[in-house]
């Protein structure tokens, strides 16, 4: 399957995560542009901590927990579902998942983008943060479980709820949130929200942000951008940047 020496295919069958990740690093250091990894099943930490901004990993199967954790630069495409802790504390790069993901996507994420065609589990984007131009983004095609954006301090989360199977988010959405923006296609009932956030209309600036990321979502998953933005979006923002600033002050 080698093509111009730029694509390398490896099989993960039966490999322990340490062996697989050593192999991936070796192949990247040899200069291959793109690695296709077949038969992945449960191997953890794929792409974790790597800094190869212009390279692509294609994963076939079900990668294990902490996919792309602490990653600084790399494009990962998953043809299957991902498990828990995807993009944990990720700094940069992009993860595109053609299936769904488990819990804790983008926990403490600080940069880069994650695109999920299907749904995501509980605690998506909790403790996400941003600094100047480092603004992490998570786009979810389906819906999410409880505690979306809990204690979120920065970044953008976009929930599209495309199949509209129930509400876009679970309970306690945005609890303790004090920074960043959650965009929701359609709306979400008030009782699902944490008491630190408010649901408001979007403005021109928001539309520009949405389009910037939804253009790529549409391209990756073969869905028209017009369809994605045909429905009204709302946004969730925190009431206050420091909701607990005075909690222990007196």
């Amino acid at each position, binding site marked *: 399957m080698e093509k111009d020496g730029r694509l390398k295919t490896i099989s993960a069958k039966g490999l322990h995560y340490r062996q697989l990740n050593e192999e991936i690093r070796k192949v990247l250091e040899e200069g291959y542009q793109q690695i296709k990894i077949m038969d992945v099943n449960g191997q953890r930490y794929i792409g974790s901590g790597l800094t190869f901004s212009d390279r692509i990993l294609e994963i076939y199967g079900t990668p294990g*927990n902490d996919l792309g954790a602490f990653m600084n630069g790399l494009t990962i495409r998953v043809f299957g579902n991902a498990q828990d802790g995807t993009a944990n504390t990720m700094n940069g790069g992009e993860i595109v998942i053609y299936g769904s993901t488990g819990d804790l996507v983008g926990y403490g994420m600080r940069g880069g983008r994650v695109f999920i065609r299907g749904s995501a589990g*509980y605690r998506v984007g909790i403790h996400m943060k941003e600094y100047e131009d480092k603004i992490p983004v998570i786009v979810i095609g389906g819906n999410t479980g*409880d505690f979306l954006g809990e204690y979120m301090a920065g970044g953008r989360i976009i929930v599209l709820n495309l199949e509209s199977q129930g509400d876009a988010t679970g309970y306690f959405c945005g609890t303790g949130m004090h920074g960043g923006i959650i965009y929701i296609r359609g709306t979400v009932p008030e009782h699902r929200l944490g008491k630190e956030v408010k649901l408001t209309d979007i403005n021109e600036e928001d539309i520009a942000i949405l389009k910037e990321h939804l253009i790529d979502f549409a391209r990756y998953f073969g869905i028209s951008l017009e369809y994605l933005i045909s429905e009204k979006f709302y946004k969730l923002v925190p009431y206050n940047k420091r909701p607990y600033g005075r909690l222990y002050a007196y």
Partner: protein
Amino acid sequence: MRDINIKYLEGEVRIPSACGLLGYINRKGELTSGYHIVDAMSVMRERGNGLGAGFACYGLYPDREDYYAFHLFFEDINAKEETSYLLYRYLDVVQEEKIPTRKVRTIKDPPIIWRYFVKPKEEYLEDEDITEEDFIVRLVMKINSEIKGAYVFSSGKNVGVFKGVGYPEDIGEFYRLEEYYGYTWIAHSRFPTNTPGWWGGAHPFSLLDWTVVHNGEISSYGTNVRYAEMFGYKCTLMTDTEVITYIIDLLLRRHRLPLDIAIKALAPPLYSVIDRLDEEERIKMKAIRAIYQSCLLNGPFAIIVGFKDGIFALNDRIKLRPLVAGEKGDFVYVASEESAIRALSPELDRVWMPRGGEAVVSTLEERGVLV
């Protein structure tokens, strides 16, 4: 706490991780070899640390399906003799034997592991006007709390638990699990947190035909234990999974609660959720919370529970532990990680993540649905 042998204490390495769970049922009752689940557990190796693993199999003793299969650990021959005397006194023992094992390099100092196929003696049941199951439960409690160095770790009909200190693949090889066939298999890889790893403390925990594997740490342990003890259960191992097993026996067998109600007693909806239910449901949920307040399992947990007619899996209300379900034909799978399910069946008709507090239930077709 009962005096346990100290030689199995503490491993040498600690890798931060959490227990791994896997279970499946064939709804048509078709039997599969233990080979598959042992093999599939290896993809979740990082979830355990070698300080405990175990398996439960339903349907493995078809020739002895009318007898309770007691599996016991004995620390020494004295414990075995003392227990044997008690068993022969109260029970008709139709068969007893050493559970076949193989030498495995990594499995060190196993206890004496024995099984008995038994039935309570009629005369005792009549004299005491007690059900067969209650009689068995009382005897198991007596052995586990009173005989030093003896522990009954399996006591159901046509179900067997096999467990010990080691990684799942080693325990599977040790017990020759590929030679057993069952319609339900449940497996656990352990990362003990609050108690030292010991053979008896490995999962599944079992009583009668209930088997329970658990990932998590329930903060309601004290409340749950006090409640279970009021009904004669004796918690001897200080392990939260043990008390979960007894509470399940209490709710489902002795209190005869329907499965859906028992599940709500274990993981009731939060009051903020109850407030928005329609009136009938609201009254029902409030009643469950009031009556079975002490059965509420609080804190992080994911459990898989096996019983003779099926299997159920449940998370705590706010889902602090992973749980995934999958379906392929007549098979229903539940696990801590999707990869473990895919190791059993690479292609699946459906994969989903149950919400916190919402159980996945699957039962044998011909025996009807319990719910």
